[in-house]
């Protein structure tokens, strides 16, 4: 679905990503794991076309997209849930969702109703302004909005950040259902338990370099890797 | 009212026959020895911004004069070289232009200038430049009273009327109208204030029973007069007077029509309503029956000189002459007359020749007063009526004129010494 080769990215003089290679296979949840400040967000932004100062190849559905502007990448079928969630504060919940389907013009199973079915809480809040939601509600909305565009691939940055354990659990369930619905997911997180519970394939990133890759089973069987890269 | 019309026409006819000097059509052949070739005349007026149309009209009048004179052999055999520059409305630009004309370009005479501030600023440096300056528009009375008469800056002349015309002659008209209560919307700067004061004081002398019940002051650059109109219309005035001019007057008239201003007031006096920019812009929409004047009106005087000027002007530019076109045209002819009289282009000789000069122009006989270098001539008032051909406005059947001498203040100018010198009885 998505393949990244030798991606290098820069913020000004700061070299953030070093030769990152990464694949997100169809109908799988791929996780990019690492502590914060290691380049996870930058990787997603590069895919989305939001960082122009980069080199390397990014191929989505066989098509090189590294030179394309974000809106074209979005229309090709990439959804994005940024770590700040990017909720439009002056739009209502419903508008936040519908704006995505309006803009993408892509057909699929996801529409307002199916998003509400996935996150019933949003239905109750449908007429509230985006700015008035709590952190967890915003997270649901941001994911729901990305889905409403019916993407083939969805990029989710730090889905568990700031969420209470119970909500993390629900979220894990939701992501699995999204995957079952036929959408490929690439997410970043530092919550290894969550990653273990939802993902199929794991990349560990540190200091802008991919340090380890493997299926979730392999990761589960090598706790030393986890301790080395993820904990204090 | 009719009596006045007749009298004015008689006077006008006399003026026409009293032509002493008018070189343009005489086509006198040049003398063998030329004075200076070419004689350089430099002109400046506002060519940019909201008042750019004034500069264009200035230029048309001057160019016509230059073309005619050159086609007829020039001034004593010397051709005229003419140049024109944008003076904007900034005094500093006018001063720079004047310096450029004289010190760099080598002008023998400079002319033009629209705003009072510019005229005064340029006037003040004329002793340094020492060339004749003929002002063709700026109307401040300070120019002739203070700069020329009191300070003795002899290089300054003015062929256009000073503000007296706008306030005082309007009061003459008003004194004949059967109404008592007056209101104004006036420009909120010196010109507007001086004119309204002159109007009030003159009218009060002529008609002690009048009252001035409402005044509203509009800033320079006002585009929307509706609140001013609304204000004066809430008074019980019967007559309305204004010295608003150019684009602002057009706005005022347009909006006034919408508000019914011309219905509410029995009589309306527009001192500069006869300016061709306003007449062109309004055309048939010009409200009928209002009194208008300006510093020259294309139908007055009904002389051959004027008639042929209007014809030639129209033929050349496809437009009717604006008052600044006439004053620019006449300024050049005045200069020509002076040079021919003095047989010299030396500043002192030309000044001497211009002082006291009487010459016939499209606007009638002009006489340049020796003391203050102000050209004295008559300007008509009349009621707007429509015609079928451009410019669609005529005053023919209602023209009123007073002898200029009776309402021009005389040297020595004393503070608040407004006319009438004219004995009404």
């Amino acid at each position: 679905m998505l393949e990244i080769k030798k991606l290098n990215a820069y913020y000004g003089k700061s070299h953030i990503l070093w030769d990152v290679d990464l694949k997100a296979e169809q109908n799988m949840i791929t996780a990019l794991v690492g502590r914060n400040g290691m380049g996870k967000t930058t990787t997603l932004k590069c895919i989305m076309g939001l960082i122009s100062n980069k080199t390397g190849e990014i191929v989505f559905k066989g098509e090189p997209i590294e030179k394309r502007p974000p809106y074209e990448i979005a229309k090709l079928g990439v959804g994005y849930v940024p770590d700040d969630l990017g909720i439009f504060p002056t739009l209502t919940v419903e508008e936040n969702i519908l704006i995505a389907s309006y803009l993408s013009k892509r057909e699929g199973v996801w529409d307002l109703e199916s998003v509400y079915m996935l996150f019933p809480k949003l239905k109750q809040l449908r007429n509230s302004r985006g700015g008035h939601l709590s952190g967890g509600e915003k997270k649901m909305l941001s994911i729901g909005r990305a889905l409403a565009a019916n993407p083939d691939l969805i990029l989710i940055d730090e889905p568990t950040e700031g969420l209470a354990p119970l909500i993390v659990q629900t979220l894990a369930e939701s992501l699995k259902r999204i995957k079952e619905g036929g959408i490929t997911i690439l997410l970043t997180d530092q919550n290894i338990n969550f990653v273990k519970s939802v993902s199929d394939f794991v990349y560990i990133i540190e200091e802008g370099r991919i340090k380890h890759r493997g299926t979730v089973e392999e990761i589960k069987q090598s706790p030393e890797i986890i301790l080395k890269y993820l904990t204090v | 009212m009719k009596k006045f019309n007749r009298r004015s026409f008689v006077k006008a006819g006399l003026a026409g026959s009293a032509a002493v000097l008018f070189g343009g059509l005489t086509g006198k052949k040049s003398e063998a020895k030329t004075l200076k070739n070419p004689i350089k005349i430099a002109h400046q007026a506002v060519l940019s911004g909201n008042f750019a149309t004034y500069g264009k009209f200035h230029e048309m009048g001057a160019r016509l004069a230059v073309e005619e004179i050159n086609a007829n052999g020039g001034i004593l055999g010397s051709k005229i070289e003419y140049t024109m520059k944008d003076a904007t409305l900034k005094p500093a630009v006018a001063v720079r232009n004047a310096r450029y004309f004289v010190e760099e370009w080598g002008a023998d005479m400079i002319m033009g200038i629209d705003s009072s501030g510019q005229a005064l600023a340029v006037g003040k440096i004329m002793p340094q430049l020492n060339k004749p300056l003929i002002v063709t528009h700026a109307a401040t009375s300070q120019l002739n009273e203070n700069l020329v008469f009191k300070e003795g800056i002899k290089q300054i002349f003015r062929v256009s009327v000073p503000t007296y015309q706008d306030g005082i002659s309007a009061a003459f008209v008003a004194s004949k109208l059967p109404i008592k209560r007056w209101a104004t919307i006036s420009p909120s700067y010196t010109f507007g204030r001086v004119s309204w004061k002159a109007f009030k004081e003159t009218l009060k002398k002529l008609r002690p029973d009048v009252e001035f019940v409402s005044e509203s002051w509009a800033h320079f650059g006002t585009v929307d007069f509706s609140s001013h109109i609304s204000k004066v219309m809430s008074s019980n005035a019967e007559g309305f007077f204004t010295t608003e001019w150019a684009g602002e007057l057009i706005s005022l008239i347009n909006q006034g029509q919408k508000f019914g201003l011309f219905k509410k007031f029995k009589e309306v006096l527009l001192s500069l309503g006869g300016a061709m920019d306003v007449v062109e812009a309004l055309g048939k929409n010009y409200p009928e029956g209002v009194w208008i004047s300006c510093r020259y009106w294309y139908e007055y005087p009904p002389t051959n000189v004027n008639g042929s000027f209007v014809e030639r002007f129209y033929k050349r530019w496809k437009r009717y002459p604006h008052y600044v076109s006439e004053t620019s045209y006449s300024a050049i002819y005045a200069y020509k007359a002076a040079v021919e009289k003095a047989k010299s282009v030396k500043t002192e000789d030309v000044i001497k020749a211009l002082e006291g000069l009487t010459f016939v122009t499209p606007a009638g006989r002009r006489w340049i007063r020796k003391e203050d270098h102000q050209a004295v001539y008559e300007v008509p008032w009349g009621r707007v009526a429509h015609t079928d051909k451009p410019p669609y406005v005529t005053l023919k059947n209602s023209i009123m004129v007073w002898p200029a001498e009776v309402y021009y203040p005389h040297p020595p100018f004393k503070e608040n010494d407004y006319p009438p010198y004219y004995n009404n009885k």
Partner: protein
Amino acid sequence: MIETLIFQGLTGLSQGMFLWLISSGLTLVFGILGVLNFAQGSFYMLGAFVGYSVLKFTGNFWLATLFAPVIVGIFAFFLERFLLKPAYKLDESYQLLLTFGFALVLENLAKLIWGSGYIASPRVPGLNGFVMLFNRPFPTYYIFIIAMGFLTVAVLWYFLKFTWPGRILRAASTNQEMAAALGVNVSMLYSLVFGLGAILSALGGILATPITVTSSGVGDTIIIKAFLVIVIGGLGSLKGAFVASLIVGLIESYGVIFMPFFEMAMIYIIVIFILLFKPSGLFPENV
């Protein structure tokens, strides 16, 4: 006295509406592009001139009112594409200076094209009369202007609130990166918003022709007032622009009665107070 106050109020409202048409364009452009557009006054002037040409061609004021703003909008669209885009990487004060340059050029281009004269005011079929209020005539055209002002408010409100392009505009004004990630062509959006801003100003220009005079310098005069309006209202707030336009219109109108020589100064005094005590304006809010 009451009637005078009401009349002054109505004329003040109509003056405010012209300010609103300019300042709404300024606000939209500032809210999305972050550019304080000096040339907004030039679009107002172009609206009047282009409207005049369309009127001459078609003889119909309403066609002119319809087409002139669109033509000016298209022109502005390309102006943004070719000359403003390169300036986005510059400091905001340079963008302001650049649009100042646009204004200089447009004013003088207009003079070349339409000449330096005053353009005659068209008669508007059906709106030349007046209605009687307290036994005094009040022109229908002014009522029309006030109505048009409220109509544009309603249309803009509806557009922003209930149409997708409007919602996208609101979304992009708060988070352009996210809008781009959802499929908004931000570069195109910029051009379109610049064009839309020009359309609003040009509408003001053509609507003003029946009551004022049009000359190439007219944009200059009105843009400064519009700047002051959006400072009072709050940069980027349409609600603020509307309320402030009406406030300024009313102050000028009542100022003519109550403080004849200081109504101009009043605006500055208000601006100074706003900036010192409520620097983000009356309604600090996004589009």
